[in-house]
C-alpha cells in the first residue's frame, strides 16, 4: 500500500456533503416533520440530590394538547442508559435524584409549548439530600453513598519500572498540583431525535448522534424488543465532540417508547439550557504531579495522582480514567512511572467523552511540569523536551514500542525552525504589553485500543454507470470523515471524488462499527473502505483485462477510465467496464471489515500494547498580555502534528484550527459556574464560547511519518490539537508573566489579579 501512486491524496478536497450544508437543504433531526408528529419535553429534577416522594401527573394530563406522560414505570425495559458498566443511569428517575438535570418524566404533546407546559405542571416532591459537590467530600470516610457501591466510579494504576528506584536516581525533583474545570461541548445544534413507528413492528429513530449502534442497543433494551426491530438513522449532526452519546441514547429511548405507545412520531429537541445541564461535560480534574530528573535533563521518574470529578453517573468515566493514566506522563521516554487515577461521583452533571478524552487535562499538567523542570535546570524548554522525546523503538508509558510512525522529533524540528525564524517581539515590550512564548508536546492514542474491540464495517458498491456508493458504520458529525472515506474509495477505484456518494449511517445497512471516537475514523474506518474498494476493484480489473485482452496486471484505473499501463491512450470508460462486469456476473459490491490488532494489555498495571498508533504533536504559542486589563492576544500559534499521511489538507487544517480553539477556550475562557450543585451559566451569554473575535491564528504544519496501520498511512487528527493548544497557552502565560498558573482556565481576571497582588507585572 505504501507504494501506491497517489493522485488525490493530500490535496484540498471540498466537503462532499458541503452543498447541502451551505444551502440549508441538509436535514438535521430537528428539521424533520412527519404526519401527526408530537413533541416530547422532560420534567427535570431541578435539585442536585434528593429522594422523590411524589410524582403526580394529573394536572399535566388535563392540558388538552398533552397526549401522554411517561414515568419510569412506563418504560417496558430496564429503564437504564449508560455506555459502560456499571450502567448506573436511569432513563427516568423514580427514586433518587443524583443531579439537577435528571429527567423524571416525559410529557408528549401536540406542540412544543404544550409539552413544556405539561412538564412544568407535573407535581413533583423531592426530599432534598445534602448534595455532595466535591470529590474530596465524596471520598471522605462515611460520606453518603451516591450509588450503592460507593462514590468511586473507577480507580486504576499505571505501573512502569520501579518508582522508588527512579526517584533515588533523581538529582532534582519538581512537584506541583494542577486543576482543570468542567467544559461544555457547546456544539451549535442541541441534541435532537425523532422516532417514527413504522407499522411493521419496527421503529425508526432519526438522531443527532455520535454512535448510532449505541442508540440502537439502548432503544431496543428500553423498549424490550430485539435490536433488529430498531433502526437508527443518523441525521445530519451539528457537532458532537464526544457529547452526543449518552444523551442521544436518553432522548432516543424516550422518544421511541412514546412513539411506539402512541403509534405516532415523536420528536425531542433539547433547548440550550437542557443541552448544558442535561448532557455530559468534560471531567474537572485535580492532578498532583512529581517529576524526578538528572541534572542533564534526563527524566528518570514520574509520580502522578489524578482525581477526576465525574459527576452523577459513570458515562465514559472508566475509559477517560484509563486514557488519563496512559497519557499522563506525556510523550516522553521515562523508565519509572506510577500513575493513579480515580474518577469520583458527585451530585453534578455527569462527565464523559469530550474531544481529547482526559488527555487535555493531563497534558496541561505534564507540560507545565516540563517548563517548571526546564526553569529549575536553567535549560531551554524545547531542548528539555527534545532530550526526553519518544523515538522509534522507545517504550511508551505502557511499555509499548513503535518502530514506525513516531514523528515527535520531527514535529519538534518544525517548531524549532519556526522559533528561529520568528523572534518573539520582546523588545517591543512596553508599559502596556507583556510578551510570552509557550511550547508543548503531546501524544494522543489512536483507536479504541484495549478499551474494547476495534472494528469498522464498510460497504462499497459500484453501479453500472461506474459511480460508487459507500456505507461506513462511523458517523460524520461535521469533521469531514465522509469526504475522507470518499477519497479513499476514489483513490483505490481510480474514480474522481464527485463520482462517490457516502450515505449517512443507517444501522440497517452497515455493520456495527462501534462508537465514532478516539480519532479512529480515518485510521480504522479508512482501512475498512480501502479493503472493500480493493475487493470490488478485483472484478473491475478482471473485466477490463478481458476487454483489453491483456493481463490484469496491465490494467490501471484513473479519472473514471480503465487504461493500459504501457499505453495510457488505450482506455475504456469505467462505466463501460462496470456495466460489462455486471452483465458478466462479477460482484460489484463488497462488505469489508477492518479490525485493529487485539491489544495485549494488563488492566491492573496498564502495561502492554494498547493503541495501533499515536498522533504526536508540538505546539508553539506567542501571546501578549495587557498589563492593565489582563487581556490576552495570541500573536502566533503553530501546531505541528505527525498524522502519518494527509488525506484531505483542508480537512486537516479544519481539525487543527477548530480543535485548537476548543483547547484555547478550555485554557482561557470556558468555565461552568455553579452554586449549590446548580449550574448558573447554562447559556451562551454567561458561558463564554469563543467567538470570531477570540479566534487564534493557528497555523498547521503536517509531519507525515507513514503509519502502517492506517489507510494510506494516515493517523487521526481530531482530538490531539485540543491538548496541544491548551498547554502551550498555559506555558506562554507563565513565560509572559513569570507566574505559574496551576488552574485552567487562566482567565483574564486571574491574570490581572495575580499581577496586581504581587506587583509582578509592573516595570
Amino acid at each position, binding site marked *: 500500500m505504501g507504494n501506491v501512486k497517489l493522485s488525490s491524496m493530500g490535496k484540498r478536497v471540498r466537503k462532499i456533503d*458541503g452543498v447541502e450544508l451551505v444551502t440549508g437543504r441538509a436535514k438535521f433531526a430537528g428539521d424533520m416533520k412527519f404526519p401527526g408528529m408530537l413533541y416530547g419535553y422532560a420534567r427535570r429534577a431541578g435539585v442536585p440530590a434528593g429522594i422523590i416522594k411524589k410524582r403526580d401527573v394529573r394536572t399535566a394530563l388535563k392540558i388538552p394538547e398533552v397526549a401522554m406522560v411517561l414515568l419510569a414505570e412506563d418504560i417496558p425495559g430496564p429503564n437504564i442508559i449508560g455506555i459502560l458498566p456499571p450502567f448506573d443511569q436511569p432513563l427516568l428517575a423514580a427514586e433518587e435524584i443524583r443531579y439537577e438535570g435528571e429527567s423524571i418524566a416525559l410529557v408528549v404533546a401536540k406542540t412544543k409549548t404544550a409539552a413544556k407546559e405539561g412538564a412544568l405542571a407535573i407535581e413533583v416532591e423531592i426530599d432534598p439530600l445534602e448534595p455532595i459537590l466535591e470529590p474530596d467530600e465524596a471520598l471522605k470516610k462515611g460520606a453518603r453513598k451516591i450509588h450503592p457501591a460507593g462514590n468511586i466510579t473507577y480507580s486504576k494504576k499505571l505501573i512502569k519500572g520501579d518508582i522508588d528506584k527512579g526517584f533515588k536516581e533523581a538529582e532534582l525533583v519538581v512537584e506541583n498540583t494542577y486543576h482543570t474545570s468542567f467544559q461544555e461541548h457547546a456544539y451549535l445544534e442541541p441534541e435532537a431525535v425523532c422516532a417514527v413507528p413504522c407499522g411493521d413492528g419496527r421503529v425508526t429513530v432519526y438522531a443527532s448522534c455520535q454512535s448510532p449502534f449505541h442508540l440502537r442497543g439502548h432503544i431496543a433494551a428500553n423498549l424490550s424488543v430485539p435490536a433488529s426491530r430498531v433502526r437508527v438513522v443518523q441525521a445530519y449532526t451539528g*457537532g458532537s465532540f464526544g457529547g452526543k452519546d449518552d444523551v442521544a441514547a436518553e432522548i432516543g429511548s424516550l422518544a421511541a417508547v412514546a412513539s411506539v405507545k402512541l403509534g405516532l412520531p415523536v420528536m425531542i429537541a433539547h433547548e440550550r439550557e437542557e443541552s448544558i445541564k442535561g448532557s455530559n461535560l468534560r471531567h474537572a480534574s485535580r492532578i498532583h504531579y512529581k517529576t524526578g530528573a538528572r541534572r542533564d535533563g534526563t527524566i528518570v521518574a514520574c509520580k502522578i495522582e489524578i482525581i477526576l470529578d465525574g459527576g452523577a453517573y459513570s458515562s465514559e468515566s472508566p475509559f477517560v480514567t484509563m486514557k488519563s493514566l496512559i497519557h499522563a506522563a506525556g510523550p516522553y521516554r521515562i523508565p519509572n512511572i506510577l500513575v493513579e487515577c480515580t474518577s469520583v461521583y458527585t451530585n453534578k452533571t455527569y462527565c464523559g467523552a469530550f474531544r481529547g478524552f482526559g488527555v487535555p487535562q493531563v497534558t496541561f499538567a505534564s507540560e507545565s511540569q516540563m517548563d517548571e523542570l526546564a526553569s529549575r535546570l536553567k535549560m531551554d524548554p524545547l531542548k528539555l523536551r527534545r532530550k526526553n522525546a519518544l523515538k522509534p523503538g522507545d517504550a511508551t508509558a505502557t511499555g509499548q514500542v513503535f518502530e514506525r510512525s513516531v514523528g515527535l522529533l520531527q514535529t519538534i524540528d518544525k517548531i524549532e525552525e519556526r522559533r528561529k525564524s520568528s523572534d518573539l517581539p520582546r523588545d517591543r515590550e512596553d508599559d502596556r504589553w507583556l510578551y510570552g512564548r509557550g511550547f508543548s508536546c503531546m501524544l494522543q492514542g489512536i483507536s479504541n485500543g484495549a478499551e474494547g474491540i476495534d472494528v469498522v464495517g464498510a460497504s462499497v458498491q459500484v453501479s453500472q454507470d461506474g459511480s460508487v456508493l459507500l456505507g461506513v458504520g462511523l458517523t460524520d458529525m461535521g469533521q469531514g470523515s465522509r469526504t475522507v472515506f470518499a477519497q479513499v474509495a476514489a483513490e483505490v477505484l481510480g474514480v474522481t471524488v464527485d463520482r462517490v456518494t457516502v450515505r449517512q449511517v443507517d444501522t440497517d445497512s452497515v455493520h456495527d462499527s462501534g462508537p465514532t471516537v478516539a480519532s479512529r475514523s480515518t485510521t480504522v474506518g479508512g482501512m475498512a473502505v480501502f479493503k472493500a474498494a480493493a475487493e470490488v476493484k478485483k472484478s473491475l480489473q478482471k473485466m477490463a483485462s478481458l476487454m483489453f485482452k491483456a493481463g490484469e496486471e496491465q490494467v490501471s484505473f484513473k479519472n473514471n477510465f480503465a487504461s493500459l499501463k504501457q499505453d495510457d491512450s488505450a482506455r475504456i470508460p469505467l462505466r463501460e467496464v462496470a456495466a460489462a462486469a455486471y452483465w458478466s456476473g462479477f460482484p460489484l459490491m463488497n462488505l469489508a471489515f477492518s479490525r485493529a490488532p487485539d491489544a495485549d494489555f494488563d488492566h491492573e498495571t496498564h502495561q502492554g500494547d494498547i493503541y495501533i498508533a499515536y498522533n504526536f504533536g508540538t505546539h508553539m504559542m506567542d501571546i501578549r498580555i495587557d498589563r492593565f486589563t489582563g487581556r490576552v492576544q495570541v500573536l502566533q500559534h503553530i501546531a505541528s502534528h505527525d498524522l502519518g499521511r494527509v488525506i484531505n489538507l483542508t480537512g486537516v487544517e479544519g481539525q487543527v484550527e477548530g480543535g485548537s*480553539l476548543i483547547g484555547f477556550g478550555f485554557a482561557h475562557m470556558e468555565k461552568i459556574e455553579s452554586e449549590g450543585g446548580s449550574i448558573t451559566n447554562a447559556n451562551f451569554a454567561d458561558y463564554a464560547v469563543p467567538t470570531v473575535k477570540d*479566534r487564534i491564528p493557528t497555523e498547521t504544519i503536517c509531519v507525515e511519518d507513514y503509519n502502517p496501520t492506517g489507510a494510506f498511512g494516515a493517523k487521526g487528527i481530531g482530538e490531539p490539537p485540543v491538548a496541544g493548544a491548551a498547554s502551550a497557552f498555559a506555558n506562554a502565560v507563565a513565560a509572559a508573566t513569570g507566574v505559574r498558573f496551576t488552574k485552567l482556565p487562566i482567565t483574564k481576571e486571574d491574570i490581572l489579579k495575580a499581577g496586581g497582588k504581587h506587583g509582578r507585572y509592573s516595570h
Partner: protein
Amino acid sequence: MHLEFICNGKKVSVDVPADMRALDLIRDVMGLTGTKEGCARGECGACTIIVNGKAVNSCLMYAVKLKGKEVFTIEGLSEESGKLHPLQEAFLEEGAVQCGFCTPGMIMSAKALLDRNPRPNEEEIEEAISGNICRCTGYAKIVKAVTRAGLGNNHG
C-alpha cells in the same frame, strides 16, 4: 393576525398568532428549515435572517414584525438553476463549513455585510459575524471565505 411580506423574492400571505416568533413562522409554517435554532436567546446567531437588508436573530423577533418587509433566508441565496451564491462557493472552497449548523446564519450575516459593504476588511467581517458562534472551525476559514467572496465583488 394576518400579514403579508416578501420572502426570498416571493410574496407570502399568512395568518399567525400574535406571539409567534419569526423563526417558528419560517421553520414550522413555511417549512424553510435552513434557518436553525441554537439557543432561542439571540446568543448564537444560528437563526440569522435578513430583514430589509439587516441581519437579525429571528428567534428574538415576532413574526408579525415581518409585515410588509423584505425577508431573505438561506434558501433564497442560491439561484433556482442551482448556481450557488459566491459566499456559498467561498465557504466550500475555503473549508469554512464543518458540521454546517451555524453555516446558514453565518452566511446570512456575511451577506448582509457584503450587500452594504462589498469589499469589507477583516475587522468589518469580524464585527458582522461576531454574533454567530461556530464551535467547529475556529473561524479563520470563515473569515477567509467572506474575504474571498468580497474580493469577487469587482464592481462593488
